[in-house]
């Protein structure tokens, strides 16, 4: 009760000083008496009383301030403007009062500004998600973590994570190994005290057309195990392998093979019962727009990756419902050494073939050659030096064979 009295007294400060000095003590004395009146009433009556008291205190204070700041003073209980027509008595419970024009203008501007700031903050918050996942500690660095999103946002991770890594941390974006990778080298500056806990924010903006966008976690690049690193990136960017490899050890065990139909069903995003090249991980940004070459790119994609080629038994460019049913049997055909499980050498495409596959995406008409016309895209310019070197007979056309030979030569040279 004393708390409410104190609140009442502090609300009295809203009144103009003149009003407060004249009536202040009296008002709180009367308030106390009224408070005593309702003390033994019910909860509802009491709260109604307090609500009415405080509301009217605030509104009267506003009105008093307006009255004292405005000249000429409005007439008692309504001004000349409020004389009702045919002078009928008007029983106002709230005396009509109209604020100054400048006050209305300022109020309008202020509320527009507040609205603007609030909605801007809301917009920003909606379009910039913070993907924290569990990339925060060095323990989790060598586990695979996946964030799938079609929104832009920030990836947060601690500085000490980067600093404590043995090798570089690689953040893979997009669905193809070649799309983008950001390498975070172990920090040159030593993390100390407070700063080590600071999060580094990496801004992520999906630039892929339509399709899903993925931030595919960090992998610890350990120099001792180059093969494993290639495998882990490959497993991450291939949704089919990611789904099949339930324990993320980069080996498909017998149990995982048996469970393949269920795992593949989880990839069927549009629930049509079959898996399209996109659902198998083909990046839609890399494929040409027209339907024919889209289909061809899909076929090539499905043929190139050993695991997809095995699953798509009729090679029609998608994994049908019946092929999903028979997935376990189809996968067993990959088991060359017959040990009942699939290891990396049985699942991964040859690195040279892999590289050829990605460069050959430039071949938009699908004739097995990269012509001069096909070398005008931004991607082709990036590969310019490689293509020039591959063009052994200098006829301006790079064939698949020429490209394979050049890439193999470079691979062996390294």
């Amino acid at each position, binding site marked *: 009760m004393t708390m409410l009295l104190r609140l009442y007294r502090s609300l009295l400060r809203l009144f103009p000083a003149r009003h407060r000095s004249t009536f202040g003590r009296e008002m709180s004395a009367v308030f106390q008496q009224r408070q005593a009146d309702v003390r033994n009433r019910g909860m509802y009556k009491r709260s109604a009383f307090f609500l009415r008291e405080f509301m009217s205190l605030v509104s009267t204070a506003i009105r008093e301030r307006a009255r004292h700041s405005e000249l000429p003073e409005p007439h008692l*209980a309504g*001004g000349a403007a409020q004389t009702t027509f045919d002078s009928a008595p008007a029983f106002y419970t709230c005396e009509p009062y109209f604020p100054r024009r400048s006050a209305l203008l300022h109020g309008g501007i202020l509320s527009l500004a507040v609205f603007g700031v609030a909605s801007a903050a809301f917009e920003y918050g909606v379009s910039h998600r913070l993907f924290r996942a569990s990339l925060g500690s060095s323990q989790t660095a060598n586990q695979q973590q996946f964030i799938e999103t079609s929104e832009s946002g920030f990836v947060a991770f601690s500085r000490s994570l980067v600093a404590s890594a043995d090798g570089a941390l690689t953040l893979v974006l997009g669905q193809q190994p070649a799309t983008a990778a950001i390498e975070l080298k172990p920090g040159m500056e030593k993390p100390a005290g407070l700063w080590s806990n600071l999060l580094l924010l990496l801004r992520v903006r999906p630039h892929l057309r339509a399709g899903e966008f993925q931030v595919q976690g960090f992998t610890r690049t350990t120099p001792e195990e180059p093969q494993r690193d290639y495998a882990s990136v490959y497993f991450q960017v291939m949704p089919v392998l990611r789904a099949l490899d339930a324990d993320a050890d980069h080996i498909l065990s017998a149990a995982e093979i048996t469970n393949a139909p269920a795992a593949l069903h989880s990839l069927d995003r549009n629930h049509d019962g079959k898996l399209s090249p996109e659902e198998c991980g083909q990046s839609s940004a890399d494929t040409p727009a027209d339907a024919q070459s889209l289909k061809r790119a899909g076929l090539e994609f499905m043929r190139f990756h050993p695991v997809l080629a095995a699953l798509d038994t009729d090679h029609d460019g998608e994994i049908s419902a019946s092929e999903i049913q028979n997935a376990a049997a189809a996968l067993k055909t990959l088991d060359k050494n017959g040990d009942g499980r699939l290891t990396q050498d049985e699942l991964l495409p040859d690195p040279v073939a892999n590289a050829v596959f990605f460069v050959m995406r430039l071949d938009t008409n699908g004739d097995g050659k990269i012509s001069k016309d096909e070398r005008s895209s931004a991607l082709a310019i990036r590969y310019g030096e490689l293509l020039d070197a591959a063009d052994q007979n200098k006829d301006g056309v790079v064939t698949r064979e020429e490209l394979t030979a050049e890439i193999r030569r470079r691979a062996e040279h390294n």
Partner: protein
Amino acid sequence: MKSDPSPAPLSEPVLLILLSLAEQPRHGYSILKDVEAMSAGRVVLSTGTLYGALGRLLDDRWIERFAEDDASRDRQAYRLTPKGRQNLLAEVARMKQLTRLATLRVSPKEA
């Protein structure tokens, strides 16, 4: 009417406060109780409304403030000024005329 050529209509709380003071001088709390009693509990004034109205009535010199002789030092009482009484009477007369008119027009009377 020599005070106000055309006194504006009074709001119901203000009218009730004036009527309450017309009977006898009162202090704040007593006005609240009297208004409540007069309107049979329909009009319950909050302290904010009461003192807002009293402030305006004081400024317009319809009422005046005085210290009650016997009461404790905080007790201030209010009474009508001659001007206030005149304006109240004018308002009541106007309302009387209106109710007479209303009775004539509204009541089911064969004319």
